[in-house]
Structure formats: C-alpha cells, structure tokens
C-alpha cells in the first residue's frame, strides 16, 4: 500500500508471527485445549500434562530428524522398524550375548544409527529414492528384529534402567527433559546454523544446491543417520518405559510421526517447516488423544476427530497463507 519501504513495526512483527504456520497451529491448539478443558476438569492438570509429555517423547524425538528429512524433500518410513530393531538388539546383546547393560544400551542405539546410515548410504550413493529405500528397509529392519529376537523378549532389567522411562527428575518425567533439550538444540540448529540453511536449500532446489557448492550428499547422509540414531534412542526409552522388548515395537509409529510433522506445517514437498511447528504438531495430537478420551469419547471416535483436525488444520493454514500471499 505504501510506496516507500519502511521498517517493520512491532505490530507488523506480531502479525507476522500470528499469521505464520506455527502461529495458526498454536491458535488451533489453544482453542482445542480450552474446549477440552471445559469438557473435563481432569484434563488441564499438571500431572496429566506431564504424563502426556512422557507418552509423546518417542514420537517427539523421532519427529525432529523427520522434520529435517521432509524439509529436504525426502521421507523416512523405516523409523518404526529401526526403533524395534534397536530395542531388540539392546535386549539381545544384554541377555543373550551377556553384554553389561550400559554397553547393551550403546549397542542398541548404535544399531539404530547404523540402520539409518544404511538408509542414507543407499539414498546418497546408489540414488534410491528415499520413499522406496525406506519402504524396503521398513520390511527389512523389522525382519532383522524378528530374526535376531527369535520371538523371545528380554525382561527383568535392574532398577536403574527404568529411571529414564518411568522415573522423574525434579518432578518432571526424565525422558521429557531429554525431549525438551533435544527440541531446543535441534530447533536452533535448523533455524540458525549453516546446516539448517543447507537443508532448506536442498529442499527448495536440490540441483541448485549442488551447483552452488553445497555438499548435499554429506548432509543427506548425516540426517538419515541422525534419524536412525534418534529412532534408536526412542527404542531405548521405550524399552525403559515398558520394561520389556518385543520385535513389533514401534510398528506404525512412522505414520504418527509424519502426521505430526505435516500438521506442524512442514511441507511434504520440502523447503519449508520448523521444529517449533513439529513440536506443536506432536503436542496437539497427544493432547487431542488424551483430552478426547477424558471427555468421554472412545478411541474409534478419537481417531476420526484427529484425522479431521489434520486435514482441517492444513486447510486453515493454506487459506490464511494464501490470503497473506495475496494482500
């Protein structure tokens, strides 16, 4: 409207944040929380919210690298299988191979990292499209977990092992600390470092990024390996929380994670997205699941609502963003 460029005022800045993807999503979350809180007084309590934090840690941890990957235009469908594989390797190396438990934990997480590295290696070196590669390893890693476990589960860990999954630190579930720190660190990494900028560049135009001298392959290899590592950590936390290992652990978690990431405003075509948005997506889904059940809905109705919210949120987002784009 004004011909001369002007410095953004505080109002402009505020409007910018409000009308950003995260702003819209945050607003949706706020509305849902308030609505749910009016339906039941059990929902908006510190205990309940902290408990939900405990439950969403695995999805939240895996969603961070998934955001990175989707920003580059890729996808990782094998995270659930990697989680199961890491859990099985942890239990197997402890119980069958007789590793000390500390070493077994490291072995488990490393096996997840290695699995992610294999994904990355094929995607980068052989050029397999990420969706196809991780679709294949979705079956492969689950199969490895089954084969290694021989359908047996490892249970009966010493007491300290459960601290991470079931214990509390300063009144807050232990794993939630881990989630908060990880989210903060990797949110900043994505938003403020060269790595983050490189990921956006790859997602916007991979060929262009290559020509402008970015070591695209190295970045891609890094984030897929990182994804495997996080799935491995999530596997460890999950074993610690439920105190046993099963080869079907984490089955289907990839869809929960992807739902949270796209709900958080990350475009499935790459190039845009943020850890903040993803975090809000993870929290929103978890709170909806919990709050709807508390207010008397059963799970079958809950999944209908969550599915609708997913579509609706993106719809609203599209609408507002296109309005902003036009004005």
């Amino acid at each position, binding site marked *: 409207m004004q011909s001369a460029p002007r410095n953004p005022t505080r109002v402009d800045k505020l409007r910018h944040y409000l009308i950003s993807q995260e702003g819209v999503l945050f607003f949706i979350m706020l509305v849902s929380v308030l609505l749910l809180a009016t339906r039941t007084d059990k929902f908006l309590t510190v205990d309940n919210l902290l408990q939900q934090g405990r439950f969403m840690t695995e999805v939240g941890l895996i969603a961070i690298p998934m955001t990175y990957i989707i920003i580059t235009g890729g996808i990782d469908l094998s995270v659930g299988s990697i989680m199961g594989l890491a859990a099985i390797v942890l239990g197997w190396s402890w119980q069958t191979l007789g590793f000390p438990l500390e070493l077994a934990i490291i072995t488990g997480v490393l096996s997840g990292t290695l699995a992610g590295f294999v994904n990355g290696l094929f995607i980068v070196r052989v050029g397999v499209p990420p969706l196809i590669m991780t679709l294949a390893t979705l079956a492969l890693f689950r199969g490895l977990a089954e084969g290694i476990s021989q359908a047996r589960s490892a249970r009966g860990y010493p007491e300290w092992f459960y601290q991470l999954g079931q214990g509390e630190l300063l009144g807050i579930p232990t794993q939630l600390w881990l989630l908060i720190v990880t989210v903060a660190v990797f949110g900043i990494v994505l938003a403020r470092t060269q790595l983050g900028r490189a990921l956006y560049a790859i997602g916007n135009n991979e060929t262009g990024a290559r020509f402008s001298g970015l070591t695209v392959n190295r970045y891609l290899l890094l984030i897929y390996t990182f994804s495997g590592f996080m799935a491995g950590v999530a596997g460890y936390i999950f074993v610690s929380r439920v105190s046993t290992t099963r080869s079907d652990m984490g089955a289907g978690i990839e869809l929960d994670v992807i739902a949270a990431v796209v709900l958080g405003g990350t475009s499935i075509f790459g190039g845009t997205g943020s850890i903040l948005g993803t975090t809000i997506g993870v929290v929103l889904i978890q709170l909806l699941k919990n709050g709807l*059940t508390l207010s008397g809905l059963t*799970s079958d109705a809950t999944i209908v609502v969550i599915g609708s919210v997913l579509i609706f949120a993106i719809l609203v987002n599209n609408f507002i963003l296109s309005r902003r784009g036009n004005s």
Partner: protein
Amino acid sequence: MKKGFALAVILALLVMVGLPLSADGHERWDGADDLAVNPLACGMGDAMMEDDSDAMMDGDAGEDMGMVEYDGGQPAMMDMDMAGMDITLVDVPKLVGIGYFAATTLGQKQAAEELGNVNVTTDAPTEANIDDQIQVIDTYITQGVDGILFAANDPVAIAPVLRKALEAGIHVVGYDANSEPDAREWFVNQAEFNGIAKALVDSLADQMGADAAFGIVTSTFTTPNQARWIAEMWAYASECYPDLTWLETLEAQEDAVLSFQQAQTLINKYGEDMDGIFAMTSVATPNSADAVQQAGLCGDIAVVGLATPNGMKPYVNDGCVRDVVLWNPVDLGYAAVYVTRAVVDGELMPGDSSVMAGRLGELMVVNGSEVLLGPPFVFNADNINDFDF
C-alpha cells in the same frame, strides 16, 4: 565406481539371502517364552481338572491348584467402602473392532445389566498396539474409574501402568490375556493353556489318527497366549502322541488374507503328507478352513482351531471342520465383571477358593490369583447353531 558399489551391494544382499538358506532353520518351534510347560494326562475326554495330579510329576509344582498362595497385587486403601455402591468400570481389551472382543463386551453389558449397580464401558486402541493400550489405561486412571478390566497385549509391558492403577486405588482385573500377577488383583482365565492344548491335539488325533502330520497357522510368534498354547501342545503331543509329525508353524498376523494364503502354502507344500492344520486365532481358523474348502480337500485335511462359533458356522455346517475349540467369550466378559464386583464388595479376598458369578454359578480359583471360567468348550455340528457370538 558407483556402478561397482551398487553391484557389490547386490552381491552382498544375495549372500545375505543365502545365509538363512544354508542355516538349518527348520527346528520345531515350541513357543517363545521360557516358562515351564505343564501337559495334562493323556486320553480323550474333558476331565482335565482331575487329571492334573499326574502332570505334577514333571517337577513343576508351581501350578498346583489351590495350593499356591495368592500372588496378585492389592490396590491402595480407599477412604470409603464401595461395597454395594454404584461403580464405574472401564474395559480395555487388546483392541476394538474385532468379533472376539465384541463378544466379551456383550457379556460385560449383560453382567452390568443383571447387577444393576455396575456401569462398564469398553475403550481400547484400534490396533493391537502395546503403547496405545498403555496410554488408554493411563487416561482412565486420570479420569478416575473404580475398576479396570484388561486383556493385555503384552504381559510385561502393561504391568507398570496397571501397578499405577493399583496405587491409585483402582481395582484391576484381567481376562483373556494375563499380565504379571502382581500388577493386577485377579485374572479371569478362560481355560488353562494345557486344557486348550489337550483339546486341540486330542481332536486332531481323533480325526486323523495318532500318526498324523500337521502344520500350524498362528498370529505372531510373540503373541503370548498363542505361544503358550503351542508350547503346551508340543509338550502334550510329545508325551501322549509321540508319532504326531510337526511340520511347520507359520505367522499370519490377524490378517484374513494372509491366514488363507499361509494355509494354502502349507497345503501345497506338503500335499498329501499333511493331515491337519491347527489354527490358533479366531481369524486364522475360518480362513484356514476356507483354504482347505477351496482346495477341495475337506476330509483329507482336518482344520482344528480356536474360533468363535459365528465365524465357523459355514464350515462346521457343511462338514469341512468337525471341532472348534473355544471358551465362551460372552461368558468370559460376564465373569470378569462379576469378579470385579465381588472384589469391590469384599466377597472375593486373597486366599478364597471360589467366587459366585451370576448365571455361571461358582467359579474356582486356581494358580493363586486366577479365576477359572471352566474347561474349554468344543463346538461341533451338533451344538454350534445354538450360539450366537
């Protein structure tokens, strides 16, 4: 360079495929946990309760009926006595949306109606997922119900959240699939593992002879109930029918098409060398029967399995399947509600040896903290049309 790398990778993959081939992967599979088996005495008939003393000779005395001390947990003391008052229960089966748990829910509704002072709702994940089930239970703890009924997807994984429920003063009663004993008060046992195993193996041996060969279609190797049944079947068969030939056990998840295909594969692989198929789930049994029927081999291959009557009527009525073994899931849900009511009212205390359960009469306490529904029931052409669940 890249081509060489890709080639090397493909070669490595082929070698990896070869490894499981060369390994002798064909040992008899006998259940995945390391629990002891407790086969019943040989012979036909369903008098399994009395015969149990013989089996104790195996040195596994842990399961002796009525002699084991109560090993369940106890909820934290509540301020007020709920005896006779209205209570709200939530029922968390493994998953919702399948016929079997629809039947247990029906039984719970019947019991609640009869009692008049019980309100029970069913809510569970839409897939048999351990984490989702834990979260559902946790949410109901927060909501503050008086009692939780559960059928565990995993006995160990579910234990922490059940203990939390006990600490919150909520009564916890399991049915169908147990948890660790100290994480719940009572478990309504539909039929003992060894009883099911005996009924299944006896039926096959009766139909196809004591030297029959058979394959098994199960859900997954890690599903605890199925694993225990197969382990008990093995123990019972090797004691009582040493000439039975175990061919192979295949996984089919809870997938109708996969069950059908796995049964077809068994039929085609073994041809006339196979006389029977054991199907271990209420999905696998009808679909294995379908595979036999569509191959035109009714009578040549016997299908014996666990299934609900409604799913099996087409096959039993046309003679393709003779026996279907199952407890009555409606009664199971019914008993679970009655047991919970009795616990709340103080009528079922640790150390008791029986409990009254409405139309089912007196149910016995076994294994310390389990309420036994009764011997497994065998459905056949004579009686299957009398049931509707």
